[in-house]
């Protein structure tokens, strides 16, 4: 199993895609910290300065970075995963892999684990770069670099915040994995994840606007439950500028984070089951 994972990591880390993912996420973090945060803070009217400050200054920047990182990270992880799965069909290497004694379950599990590891390392590096930029921006703004604010997080809280954001990426990554496995195509995986994310954001906005039962139906969607997880990452009561184009419902409208985590787990299981069952039953032709 270890040698199979090493082989998978060798394949993926020699592709340009993980490095593009890292670069895009790091660039996004820089835009969030400096443009939406620091520059906006300096140029804003006094009443908007507080929310701009929360976008770049520690410790609030941690929430802001994780919020944007979840949204854009989900898209980029979806692209990476779909490409990793589907190119094996395009190159015909899936046949070569399956005739070497790997079971089909092992093949998919290793592929998933390899993609997850590469994505996790890239996203954590990008987050680290964002935190470094935030430290610099906080110092340039002559603000104290400290976690000790009202409702400020402990180290354990920060770990939990990272895990919540990562967990918010997982169902989208698995959706892309499922679509690419079933469709044997990167395009199906990537287009599917983009359509789903933007379509879902629009739908959730519409349902929230209608109110009543329609608004309650949002509790079954992935996006609404991811919002619930990320709302638990907020530090204090204030809001911040986010680069994530998604509805931002009131915390009182969102499900409990524990319930949200359960709903997302069901989505993850469904996507995994579809992918594994389809792949196990499929004829692999040249």
């Amino acid at each position: 199993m270890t040698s199979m994972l090493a082989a998978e990591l060798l394949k993926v880390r020699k592709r340009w895609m993980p490095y593009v993912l890292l670069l895009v996420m790091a660039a996004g973090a820089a835009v969030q910290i400096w443009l939406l945060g620091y520059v906006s803070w300096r140029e804003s009217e006094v009443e908007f300065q507080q929310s701009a400050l929360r976008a770049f200054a520690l410790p609030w920047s941690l929430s802001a970075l994780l919020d944007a990182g979840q949204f854009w990270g989900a898209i980029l992880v979806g692209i990476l995963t779909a490409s990793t799965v589907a190119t094996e069909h395009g190159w015909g290497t899936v046949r070569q892999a399956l005739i070497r004694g790997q079971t089909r379950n092992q093949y998919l599990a290793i592929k998933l684990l390899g993609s997850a590891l590469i994505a996790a390392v890239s996203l954590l590096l990008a987050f680290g770069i964002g935190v470094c930029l935030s430290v610099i921006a906080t110092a340039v703004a002559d603000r104290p670099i400290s976690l000790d604010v009202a409702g400020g997080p402990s180290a354990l809280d920060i770990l939990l915040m990272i895990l919540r954001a990562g967990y918010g990426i997982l169902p989208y990554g698995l959706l892309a994995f499922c679509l690419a496995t079933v469709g044997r195509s990167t395009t199906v995986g990537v287009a599917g994840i983009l359509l789903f994310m933007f379509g879902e954001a629009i739908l959730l906005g519409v349902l929230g606007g209608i109110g009543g039962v329609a608004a309650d139906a949002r509790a079954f969607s992935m996006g609404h439950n991811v919002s619930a997880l990320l709302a638990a990452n907020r530090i204090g009561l204030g809001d911040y500028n986010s680069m994530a184009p998604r509805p931002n419902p009131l915390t009182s409208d969102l499900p409990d984070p524990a319930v949200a985590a359960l709903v997302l787990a069901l989505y993850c299981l469904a996507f995994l089951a579809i992918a594994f069952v389809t792949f196990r039953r499929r004829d692999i032709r040249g």
Partner: protein
Amino acid sequence: MSSHDSDTVLRTVGLTKRYGRVLALADLDLEVRRGHVYGFLGPNGAGKTTTIALILGLLAPSGGHVELFGQDTRAHLSEALRRTGAVLEGPSFYPHLSGRDNLRVWGGLSGAVDGKRVDELLELVGLRDRGRDKVRAYSLGMQQRLGLAAALLHEPELLVLDEPTNGLDPAGMREVRELIRELGQIGKTVFVSSHLLGEVEQMCDHVGIVKEGRLLTHGAVSALLRRGEALEMRVTDPERAVQVLEGLPWVNGIRRQDDRLVVEAPRVRAAELSRALADHQVYLAELRPRDSSLEEFFLEVTGEGEPRD
């Protein structure tokens, strides 16, 4: 439960594959024994690649099953494939990786294979100097050789090769033929499909001929060629000779080629044949055994004009 015979490395039992209403393979029974180099011949669309994909578990059979090393692959595919190496039709590699890294990846999937083994195989297939180049820069022939190296990486007992000389130049083809022969000599079992009949005749000791998804005949190459034995002759009166020969029970067929007659009959009957003709005042001007090639045998069995795949 499979009928275990330690000498039988590969066995298919009633192997059948349907694609909707199309029957790609019908009730195929094959047996390849340890140390044999088995040639799998057939015209285009005969079901050779389908058979190989079924053996390797890439396709699910519509009926029947495959046994590798005496074990039913429906339950033991993974274990069996760890003892098997294969080159599929059209080699597939990671184009962004070097030849060496591709072998490292395949080695990792087969269990840990060390760098020394990778170097040995690159040397064996003549790619040592190009091992660090990206595979996308390789010619088809180089990819084919890398495919062979990948198949041999984990020192398999059984090699399943689908058209292994495709894309190779004549020298490369000869090298691969010699390599396959050597593998047979050191006790490896090889199952090789090819449309090159001469190649199969030179490489293989056993052969199976398949057409339209059905196995037409199989057996040792030497025995099959003996079945096609013939005597070629020039006689004083060909018309009269044909009449005489048609009356002999061990003559399987007679055809005229220019001024000669080709008589399908065992070579050991040459003396009897000569006497029978002389008894009817037909005299031989020339008599010699005619070598039958696998190609002639193939054409006869399949009824094909030109064997292609």
